[in-house]
């Protein structure tokens, strides 16, 4: 006679199920953050690096690191702040290593709508001077200036991103622009 056994899901199965649910929730949340902040990471890197491909590499690396420690970065504002800081830091490291090696010559490619050749030459020259001027800025001022140059970033949002007071953001922005202008005199 064949025996019939009743198989019930045990405690391990329930635990595994809970883990799977948790994992898929984490994955879904990360996908949301990626859609929301992927471009932000690229732009921060692009503000420091003068090559779009390099900026993409740096942004990918920062997003990958964010994924690895996403259990601690599930909060939206925390994720954005961490991503901006990490991307900026990685981009600076990349610039420094490139400068040390002396192998990379970067160019500013200013996206202006249908520029004339004269405008392009002028903007390119101005862009290169601006690039050198930006490199000489202190890192704190530089990051604030980059974030302020992005659309939709008010002083309050930058303060939230960098976790500093709004007054500090305004002060740094003012100093950064002033120092940049002095470089062009």
């Amino acid at each position, binding site marked *: 006679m064949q025996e019939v056994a009743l198989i019930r899901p045990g405690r391990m199965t329930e*635990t595994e199920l*809970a*883990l799977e649910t*948790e*994992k898929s929730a*984490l*994955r879904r949340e*990360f*996908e949301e953050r*990626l*859609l929301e902040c*992927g*471009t932000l990471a*690229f*732009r921060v890197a*692009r*503000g420091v690096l003068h090559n*779009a491909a390099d*900026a*993409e590499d740096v*942004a*990918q690396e920062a*997003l*990958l690191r964010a*994924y*690895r*420690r*996403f*259990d*601690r970065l599930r909060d939206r504002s925390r994720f954005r702040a961490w991503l901006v800081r990490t991307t900026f830091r990685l981009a600076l490291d990349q610039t420094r290593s490139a400068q040390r090696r002396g192998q990379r010559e970067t160019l*500013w490619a*200013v*996206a*202006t709508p249908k520029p004339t050749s004269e405008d392009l030459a002028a*903007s390119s020259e*101005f*862009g290169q001077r*601006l690039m050198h001027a930006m490199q000489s800025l202190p890192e704190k001022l530089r990051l604030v*200036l*980059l974030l302020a*140059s*992005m*659309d939709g970033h008010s002083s309050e949002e930058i303060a939230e991103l960098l976790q500093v007071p709004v007054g500090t953001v305004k002060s740094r922005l*003012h100093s950064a*622009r*002033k120092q*940049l*202008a*002095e470089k*062009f005199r």
Partner: protein
Amino acid sequence: MKCDRYRDALLDAATGDMKGRIRAHVEECSECRAALREEQSLFVAIDRTLRARMAELPREGFLADVRARTSQEPEPRSLMTPMWILATASVMVAMLAMVAPWTRLRHEPVAVSGAIVSTTHALPEAKVAEPKTIDIPYERGQHGKHRIVGPPAARGPEVLVPPDEREALAKFVMHLRQRDEVAVAFASPAPNETSEPAEIRPLEIARLQLKPLVWERWKPAKDRNEENE
């Protein structure tokens, strides 16, 4: 000369921070007005260049590349998974198990008098004739299961012994090694509880005999001795 004072202020004014005093001067002075316009155009150019740069978008496959790279990574785990809690608990239990014996071995030296005898070190074999220190292996804090143990890592309690009793104590300790049961009894604290209460017998008092009092005049001891003689 007058305009030189406003040079720094003009730069601030060009960034948007124009004060009333500067405003009044710029309205009067055409040279400063031109300088302000020049500074403002410079800021506009800087902002425009930066905005153009920061408005750049990554190529279309950028996010897909990121997804491909993250798919090769292990899944992100939540901080409070059951496995993590279990691992944390295991580490804490292991640390407690490591720390507990050390807290037991912490005891102060016992001062008697004379030289110092360590009770936690190994017994000396060759230095019996002139023992300066004598070690008695003894593990404290284990009531009920005493045993002779090897030399522990930490120094234990020390007993001071008078100089003229060192040799005797050394021989006694050497003798203890040959008789474990005595050594155990010597080195062990008294048990806390007795197996059976001691039997108490009632005290027997002999019957008291009272003799009648006889009046006798008091005499000095000298006279009484003479009478007895």
